[in-house]
């Protein structure tokens, strides 16, 4: 369910790190909690984010959810087409619905995030 190579936050974002870049999205659990996503607001390329800083918003018909950066870094890519097809977040949350790519300030800091097993355990507790 949750890709092994990704790292996860307690706020239900994921980050996939390659070298000094980290691709960020929200988890399958998060999209299920939201329901049908109809609106997504993402930052501009060039913005610098601290770990845990809000970088955008996703909205379903019923709910609003803030997006928090899993790590510190500079936004170097934004998945702009996502704004036109926000339903992608429901369909492929761990793949095509990536949101931003960060140039990480410190790629080792990712080590403090949850791995797939720990995240699955967290989700299991929350869904009770």
């Amino acid at each position, binding site marked *: 369910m949750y890709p092994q190579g990704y790292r996860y936050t307690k706020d239900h974002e994921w980050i996939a790190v390659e070298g000094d870049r980290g691709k960020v999205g929200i988890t399958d659990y998060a999209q299920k909690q939201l329901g049908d996503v*109809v609106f997504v607001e993402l930052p501009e390329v060039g913005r610098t984010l601290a770990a845990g800083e809000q970088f955008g918003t996703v909205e379903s018909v019923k709910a609003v959810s803030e997006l928090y950066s899993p790590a510190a870094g500079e936004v170097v890519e934004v998945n702009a087409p996502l704004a036109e097809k926000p339903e992608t977040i429901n369909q492929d949350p761990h793949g095509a619905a990536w949101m931003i790519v960060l140039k990480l300030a410190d790629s080792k800091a990712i080590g403090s995030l949850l791995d797939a097993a720990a995240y699955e355990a967290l989700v299991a507790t929350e869904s009770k």
Partner: protein
Amino acid sequence: MSELRKTPLHAVHVESGAKMVPFGGWDMPVEYSGLIAEHQAVRTAAGLFDVSHMGEFEVAGPGALSFLQRVTANNAAKLVVGQAQYSALPMPSGCPVDDIIVYQRGNERYMLVVNAANIAKDWAWLQAQQPSGCTLTDQSDAFALVALQGPKAEAILQGLTPVELKAIGFYRFAEAAVCGHEAIVARTGYTGEDGFELFMAPAAAAAVWRRLIEAGRPQGLLPAGLGARDTLRLEARMMLYGNDMDETTTLIEAGLGWIVSFDEVKGDFAGRSVLIEQKANGAPRKLVGFETTERGIPRHGYPVFLGDEETGSVTSGSFAPFLRKSIGLTYLPTARAAVGNELAVEIRGRRIGARVVPTPFYKRPR
């Protein structure tokens, strides 16, 4: 917090994997397969809703009609047996305690259907109006209520009841068997589509629900939750008590002048003088529909501005799944409430443009 109440269909919802949420003290399904799919199913085929949390009061006896004339806004004398009427319980201020539907079941026998969250309040209110010549009974626990809504509703239901559904007009009902169980089959609803509401004994509900799902699936029916119910009613500009009207909004301001009767036969009722004055001279503000002209979703409680002046807040707002735009309702000063007028909604600190539009936002093709 007290224990959430469960409808007779609660186990069926849980078993079918519905997402459950607290609503007005009840544990209710908010969605099954997905809000948008459920919303579209109701607009294009059919949807099935559990609304057993709604309350039912019976008013019976020789004084029933005169009691209703005194405590409701509409003219109950216009009803015939087998007919329903949208109405309200007005206060002396002209503001509603609740909005209700009155069903005439017999010569001196009526059923009031009230909002789930208002059952206790309405009951206390009605008792305080001192019913005379009639008996008031809270039958809320004696009824399960399911709503079958959508253009295919009649075709789906016709296979399961001997009553000729075509003969039941809008806001009319029949007492008939559905899947062999006694039911009130009413052509009423809260979605803007054709459809029926079926009142039945709690013990019959699960069997009827399953049969309706089974009969409707091939025609595109989906079980639907309160989420879709809310977006469907908003597209049709049907109001939600507690959001779009409450004890601070008069019926005229809320656009419900059409359910207020000043007919002589009706006589006096709470709020009559306020309402007749507002109907003649206009109310200071009115509830209008708007759509956004920029991206963003207006939601209940977000501030609304005309120029720099904060005029109020969004009473109901949502992304409208069928219309595919963002819509909402808000109260504006009557002089500035014309269709086409520009306003702004503040969404998380940012003002988004919007404009007053005619309502209902959605009207079904006939």
